[in-house]
């Protein structure tokens, strides 16, 4: 493709590359979904059909490395990148172990050249990597895995609970998915830095976003920018008529939802986020919060706090679809929330340890708030001149991980399934 001058030929190669990549992804991830829905549709129309679904295991991380490989092909097609002749470097780019199974989805333009260069050990980079790994571990083991216990209990028995307890379950899942996924990203990025590789930032404190547009610039950045560059902009982006803009937003969020899994709940989650986003786009407010909230200030203003809380509330609501087993479960969960118990304090005696976890979450948010100007929560620690202070904080984090980390059961990273 790189050598071909004929545009049609180049397009043909690109199409072939995309078809092969999407073909693998579709076969492993979406075959059964489409089959089940075809059977359901035909049965509904009075023409029942029989077909055998595939009994196959989904390769770990397939959605991540498929997108990574596709970005390489598209960038070569667009002549943004020279095709590599170094098979080892290319293989290492596709299968780089820290980010292979759950991202960040790296662009070839960022990662591939790093394999060409000989690397020298960089003390600052390595210590910063270790620090990021430590923070990622805290997020995963203390925040995400503890939240998982409560959110699993509440979501798996949602018919037993009502009102505020269901809200509590959704809030716990909101922190679970953030701690789980951004924790993994921190560990992956930190590990890579130990080896001298710099990966792209994947999360930029999304729960401090003031609107949903800002949230999507800060959540799973490597996927959002992938869709922006390879789908949204080619579709026309925010150009064209209002109808076209709305169409583009719906497409990008629906595809994003479907990328997460072959389930209607992910499509509903994507649709809901599109609905959140569209008013901002139509009123030209989608780029009003590009900077860091309350930069150079200790606390947000009341207005900022209100915006953050509203955005957080919308996010919590949308995560219900993401977490639910199916659409019926999601809808019954939501209808359970809107009961007379909504304004009552949840019965914490049913969830021993939940108060401690909430205190830990508050502490976690305070650290993240203080560190929001950096790449990750405690990245600012490198500027503390006293080694005693720095090391004391590291030891404190290690002790907190040891004491409060959830090791009672093995809880997998959520994004491993994608």
């Amino acid at each position, binding site marked *: 493709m790189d050598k071909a001058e004929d545009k049609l030929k180049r397009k043909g190669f690109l199409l072939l590359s995309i078809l092969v990549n999407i073909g693998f992804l579709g076969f492993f991830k979406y075959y059964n979904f489409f089959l089940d829905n075809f059977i359901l549709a035909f049965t509904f129309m009075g023409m029942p059909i029989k077909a055998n679904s595939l009994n196959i295991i989904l390769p770990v991380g397939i959605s991540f490395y498929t997108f990574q490989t596709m970005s390489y092909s598209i960038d070569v097609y667009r002549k943004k990148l020279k095709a590599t002749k170094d098979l080892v470097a290319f293989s290492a780019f596709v299968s780089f172990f820290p980010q292979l199974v759950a991202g960040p989805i790296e662009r070839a333009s960022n990662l591939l050249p790093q394999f060409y260069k000989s690397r*020298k*050990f*960089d*003390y600052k980079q*390595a*210590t910063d990597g*270790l620090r990021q790994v430590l923070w990622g571990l805290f997020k995963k083991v203390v925040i995400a895995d503890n939240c998982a216990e409560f959110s699993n209990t509440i979501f798996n028995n949602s018919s037993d609970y009502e009102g505020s307890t269901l809200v509590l379950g959704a809030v716990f899942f909101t922190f679970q998915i953030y701690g789980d996924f951004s924790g993994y990203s921190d560990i992956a990025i930190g590990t890579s830095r130990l080896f001298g590789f710099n990966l792209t930032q994947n999360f930029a404190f999304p729960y401090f976003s003031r609107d949903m547009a800002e949230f999507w610039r800060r959540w799973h950045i490597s996927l959002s920018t992938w869709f922006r560059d390879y789908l949204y902009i080619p579709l026309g982006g925010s150009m064209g008529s209002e109808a076209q803009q709305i169409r583009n937003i719906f497409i990008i969020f629906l595809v994003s939802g479907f990328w997460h899994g072959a389930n209607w709940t992910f499509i509903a989650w994507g649709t809901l986020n599109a609905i959140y986003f569209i008013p901002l786009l139509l009123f030209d407010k989608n780029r009003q919060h590009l900077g860091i909230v309350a930069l150079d200030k200790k606390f947000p203003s009341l207005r900022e706090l209100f915006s953050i809380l509203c955005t957080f509330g919308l996010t919590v609501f949308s995560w219900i679809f993401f977490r639910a087993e199916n659409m019926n479960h999601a809808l019954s969960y939501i209808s359970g929330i809107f009961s007379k118990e909504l304004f009552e304090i949840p*019965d*914490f*005696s049913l969830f*021993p*340890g*939940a*108060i*401690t976890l909430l205190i830990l979450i508050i502490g976690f948010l305070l650290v993240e708030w203080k560190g929001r100007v950096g790449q990750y929560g405690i990245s600012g620690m490198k500027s503390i001149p006293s080694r005693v202070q720095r*090391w004391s904080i*590291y*030891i404190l984090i*290690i*002790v907190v991980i*040891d*004491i*409060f*980390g959830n*090791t*009672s059961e093995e809880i997998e990273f959520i994004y491993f399934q994608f």
Partner: protein
Amino acid sequence: MMIKLFLRHVSVFLLLLVALNFLLFFLIRSFYIKDYDEVDLGYSEYLLADSHGTPLGDFTEIHDVHNFSGQSDSYLDMERKLKFLIRNTTLEKIYISVDDHTLSPTRENQNNLDRSAYYADTEDFSSFQEFIRNKYLKYYCVFLNDRYSLVIKNFIQYELFDFSRWGGVRSKSSWEDLSILEQIEISQDRIDNYFELPNPSQIMSESLNRIIAICKVKNIKLIGLRFPLSKTYVGILNNESYDADSIFMNYDIPIVDFDSLFLEQDFMFKDMDHLNKDGGEKFVEILFDSLENKDLL
């Protein structure tokens, strides 16, 4: 040069962690391990039980029996202790708890395997690495021992910061001061905890069978004990039991059953099935009188 500096700093940091580990170990030792690793080897008769045996305290020593019970001891822990006693004493008789719950699958998780590793020897483990891991690494390394972390976590949650106002901690009133409804609720919690599954734990059953076999081979007299239970607890326990005593019956091993001894005396209890100190003292008196009458002493 840079990598040397990095490795040196990492090494110093790890040494600091090791130092912190020992500091934490001594802290944990003072309130968790406490006297678990202390045993008087001057006896030939020992009582092996879980928390039901601990209220008997030193009162058994009047009858030349050393109380070697430990809170949450499982049969696996008792088996280790038994082997330790065989190695270090001239053991003649063992009194062992055969209560309804002692074969519960819950005991597979709620036990003292981390602490009883102190009494273990290479023969108690499948490999030498397992022995080193359990007896030394997990025992002395706070960061590798989940139970130590849990103990500190519970201490912070329930002792340092009392969340009882949030309804998260059980009332600490004595058993007789609780209303019947409170007694029923707490008893039901315990039953739910221990009798969740219909079948006994295979691991615990096998361990109890091994204890019996060891005692038989070593010519050690074994006597099963069933400890007193409160009336409310017995009332809702119904026939829930994993029948540890039936294993004893199969081998014709004597059992002294006292589960209805204090049915009308709630003041003898700390909670639904644990005696308080007075109850423990009184029970020892009655137990050894009974053993004498049955010619089991």
